[in-house]
């Protein structure tokens, strides 16, 4: 089978791109290796770890399980897209304040999942936060500080 290339047009973090891809390239690999957006991490390539989570038209998806050709005509948001040009976003500040990261490998996926949750539900209870984050594995923090950081974003802040 010839590994033929085709050109896809997609929007990433609000910016239009035209990029030549092979159908077998995952969106995660194209973001990292073609577009230089290395915030999206690749852990397992089987949908389990969540490190590669991005938004497809605003909804969290696994970029290791989506071929870049499938993103044609869609809007992709990566962690770079939810990071201000200067400094950190309020959620990123909260992660910093609560020690919600150590090695940082899971962090982009955690931020995108949590940010998507908070945009839909600005005052989630702890069970809702934990349910949303079940799809993102962290080998360092033990999760509690991540949950604390997300909960601190509620208008009422802090604990339940």
């Amino acid at each position, binding site marked *: *089978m*010839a*590994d*033929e290339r*085709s050109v896809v047009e997609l929007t990433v973090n609000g910016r239009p791109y035209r990029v030549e891809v*092979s*159908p*077998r*390239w*995952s969106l995660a*690999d194209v973001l990292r290796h073609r577009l230089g957006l290395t915030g999206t991490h690749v852990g397992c*390539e*089987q*949908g389990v770890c*969540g490190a590669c*989570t991005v938004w*497809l038209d605003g*909804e*969290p*998806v*696994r970029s*290791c*399980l*989506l*071929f870049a*050709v*499938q993103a044609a005509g869609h809007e992709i948001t990566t962690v770079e897209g939810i990071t201000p040009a200067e400094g950190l976003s309020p959620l990123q500040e909260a992660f910093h304040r609560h020690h919600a990261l150590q090695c940082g490998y899971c962090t982009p996926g955690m931020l995108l*999942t949590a940010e*998507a949750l908070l945009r839909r539900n600005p005052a989630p209870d702890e069970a809702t936060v934990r*349910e*949303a984050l*079940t*799809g*993102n594995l962290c080998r360092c923090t033990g999760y509690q500080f991540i949950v604390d950081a997300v909960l601190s974003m509620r208008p009422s802040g802090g604990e339940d």
Partner: protein
Amino acid sequence: MKPVAFDYVAATTVEEAVNALREPGAKVLAGGQSLVPLMNFRLSRPSRLVDINGVASMAHIEVRERELILGALVRHQQLVEDPEIRRSLPVLSRAAQHIGHWAIRTRGTLGGSVAHADPAAELPALLVALGATIAVVGPEGTRELTAEAFFEGFYTTALAPSELVTQVKLPLPQGAVGFKEVVRRPGDFALAGAYVERLGSGGAVTWFGFGDRPRRFSVREWPSDPEDRRHVWVELVRNVPVEERDQYKYELAVAVAEESYRDAGGEE
């Protein structure tokens, strides 16, 4: 790892998809949440992928008086969130909530779950529990199969290679349907799960997560005593053959059936 090279066809109609599937080695790509992991590890090596995500006629949700009609492309997260589905068939929304994780559910589709036929999957078992019919389109036209006939065994269905699942018809149950499953971690596939329907003094139990496919058993009359009910579960579940290493699941199945029975009755 990375998948082997394949040729990619983005279908926009059922006809286009069926035509493109005539090529030997071609496979349907729906949500990709089961197929792409297999491809990434080269356990599956299709020579062509027919992407059906752009087939608009397969994404419908239609609530009728007695049935719910769902296109094959309805995503698991829609099953969770759609207000009409939550109202007309709440057990479907509750079961779908247990499929993997949010970012899996936003992509994974009903048709994909049905065609993949994992014996531990929530949706195929609910289709069997409710007596759903599955509509399939192929080069020879359309046919409708009962869920019972569609699921043949481990990851095995009555679907021919160039056929497409287009929609599922779920009769709305007359009784109350309970749902419970046992998992090691939230989002995992079930070790054992059960749907129990209570209608009058009888009903049915459908187990999944062990054996080669979901199995449904009718029960003429539920004993009111929990200990007597336990005997019913124990008797019935022995009809599901399991491998040696899964013998412990009989215990889980009995426990989860009782919980599901109570769930159907609105008991704790």
